[in-house]
């Protein structure tokens, strides 16, 4: 996506392209289907998954409703163990804070583990422009980085690529052997990455949770790359959104399995680490410095919205993307956002402005599959409706739509006018017959791909009268 394109136009154009690509769509559908099947099986192993959803939502809710207290507690505990906490209002402040740390250490190269928040603040662009080598160590992220594109799905960054495409990419960029075997391809990446861990001066990670009680960040991963990223380089920087806070360590006992189940269908992800500061005096390993960068970037705007602040409960499991019929048919890049799918469509207008991103709330059939699957019970599809209401209330739907809606109201409140409109509609149908199916047909948007029955000769009302 080019930066100058209007987000709505970009969305429509990319949606046109992807929906026309049957092969890619069917590939996406079958991958997502796989996650869904394993997830359902894992869910069934819970004694009562529904009550687990309620409890998980409550734990996050408690943190969100008392964010000021828990954030302060989290920061105090971390600082007591020698970590530095940076409070950043927006992307710019977070970028500056991180850049300053890197420059202070005279670093050359940076290794990163998967962190969507760094995508949100476009950190890689900045660091590369400043001349640092930046390497993504999560396999999926490593692949999309080589392709110079954004993550496709915030949990599965390279899910859109077939193994053959990864083979071609590795041959081209890494001079790798010709193989379509996923294990061999992984080994190719691993070999490159091992060297990078050893030479990196700085490790940057995200955080899945920030535990207020213990002042520790919790990182969930399957590849072990986050452990290396956070422990081998001499400096570790973790960037996290302020909504990642949870009250207690014991909340992880529920949230970690919920995240794994909802996200990938695993019982637990392979590696779950808690990091609470730099290397202590009696410790033999770990980074010499640890920095935790806390990012607001308009999350407090969402917090101030009593109707939609439950969206801050999100644990970024990606389950709503996996079941969303829109995501399945347009793919991740079409959204043009850091966070794709239903949760992205809900929060992006709050984080980046309703005017430019309201189309995401309209590009939904409001089917509710997202809300039904969300492990922390965010009212996702109704929030899309609320965003639509807010956009319409601000006149952002445009004058044409407003006239249409007022006209609709006038007709629907007057049965005689409703009958007349029905009659006129039939007349109009007859009169416009010559242009039916052409681009100037008022129903072209519908009829381009779908037939439309002729209006019934007799209305139900006429039928009812004749019946009596």
């Amino acid at each position: 996506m080019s930066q100058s394109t209007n987000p709505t136009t970009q969305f429509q154009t990319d949606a046109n392209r992807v929906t026309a690509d049957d092969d890619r769509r069917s590939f996406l559908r079958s991958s997502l289907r796989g996650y869904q099947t394993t997830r359902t099986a894992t869910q069934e192993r819970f004694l009562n998954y529904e009550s687990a959803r309620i409890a998980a939502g409550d734990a996050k809710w408690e943190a969100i409703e008392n964010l000021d207290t828990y954030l302060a507690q989290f920061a105090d505990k971390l600082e007591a163990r020698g970590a530095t906490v940076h409070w950043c209002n927006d992307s710019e402040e977070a970028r500056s804070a991180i850049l300053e740390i890197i420059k202070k250490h005279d670093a050359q190269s940076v290794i990163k583990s998967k962190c969507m928040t760094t995508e949100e603040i476009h950190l890689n662009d900045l660091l590369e422009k400043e001349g640092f080598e930046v390497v993504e160590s999560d396999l999926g992220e490593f692949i999309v980085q080589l392709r110079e594109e954004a993550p496709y799905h915030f949990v599965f960054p390279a899910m859109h690529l077939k193994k053959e495409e990864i083979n071609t990419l590795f041959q081209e960029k890494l001079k790798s052997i010709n193989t379509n075997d996923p294990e061999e391809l992984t080994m190719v990446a691993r070999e490159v990455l091992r060297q990078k861990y050893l030479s990196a001066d700085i490790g940057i990670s995200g955080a899945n949770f920030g535990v207020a009680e213990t002042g520790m960040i919790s990182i969930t991963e399957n590849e072990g790359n986050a452990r290396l990223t956070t422990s081998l380089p001499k400096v570790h920087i973790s960037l996290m959104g302020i909504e990642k806070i949870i009250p207690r360590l014991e909340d992880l006992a529920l949230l970690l399995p919920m995240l794994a189940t909802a996200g990938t269908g695993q019982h637990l992800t392979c590696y779950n680490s808690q990091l609470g500061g730099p290397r202590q005096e009696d410790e033999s390993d770990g980074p010499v410095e640890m920095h935790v960068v806390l990012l607001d970037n308009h999350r407090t705007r969402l917090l101030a919205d009593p109707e939609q602040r439950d969206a801050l409960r999100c644990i970024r499991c990606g389950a709503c993307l996996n079941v969303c019929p829109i995501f399945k048919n347009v793919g991740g890049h079409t959204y043009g956002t850091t966070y794709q799918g239903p949760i992205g469509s809900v929060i992006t207008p709050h984080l980046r402005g309703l005017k430019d991103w309201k189309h995401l709330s309209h590009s939904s059939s409001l089917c509710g599959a997202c809300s039904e699957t969300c492990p922390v019970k965010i009212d996702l599809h109704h929030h899309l409706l609320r965003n639509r209401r807010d956009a319409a209330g601000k006149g952002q739907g445009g004058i044409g739509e407003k006239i249409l809606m007022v006209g609709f109201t006038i007709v629907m409140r007057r049965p005689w006018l409703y009958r007349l409109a029905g009659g006129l509609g039939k007349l109009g149908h007859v009169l416009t017959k010559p242009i039916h199916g052409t681009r100037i047909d008022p129903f072209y948007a519908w009829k381009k791909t779908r037939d439309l029955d002729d209006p019934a000769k007799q209305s139900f009302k006429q039928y009812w009268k004749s019946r009596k």
Partner: protein
Amino acid sequence: MVNVLERLGHEVDYPEGQTCCGQPAFNSGYFPEAKKVADHFLNTFADADLIAVPSGSCTAMIRKFYPELYQDSPQSQVVSELSGRVFEFTELLVNHLGVTDVGAKLEGTATYHDGCHGLRELGIQDAPRKLLENVKGLSLVEMDEAQSCCGFGGTFAIKFPQISTAMTQVKLGSAAQTEADYLISGDPSCLMQIGGYFSRQNSSIQCLHIAEVLDQQ
């Protein structure tokens, strides 16, 4: 729907002043406009003992979203009472009247598509299936992802026709796999979408509203 209810011995009235529940405006975000249309609905149906609706979507609008529209308004009590008297056709038959066999007959194989509003806003899932299982001559085959959206979604179908159609294309694939003669649903709007696309693709599957099926003798 009228025929079936009368056959079961119920008296059915059709208030001739009725128009629309207001959902098109509501789902487009125009809440005050939707509320004006809802006012008209409330006046028209004020005296009804029980309101039968041949659409899960309209039922969800009235039962679930009217209370939201009338929150903190003097009419909120009236609305909440009326909401309790509105039923989607199949839940009315099965859950409220306790009828699962209406004595209908239709030869062939059918698959059922769940409309999203009926399914997720109202929790209607078993009622239509119970009714269809008792239609003589009809065998019901579940299609893959029967509960995925058909792609209609009101103005979504016009604003994003490419995504909307892609979703129906998937639906056609699932329905075709069952080799069903009929695709049955409880929502006219889903049927307009699915029927319109199936017909354009020359599919032999006939799309029927469940009321049409239950009316077959």
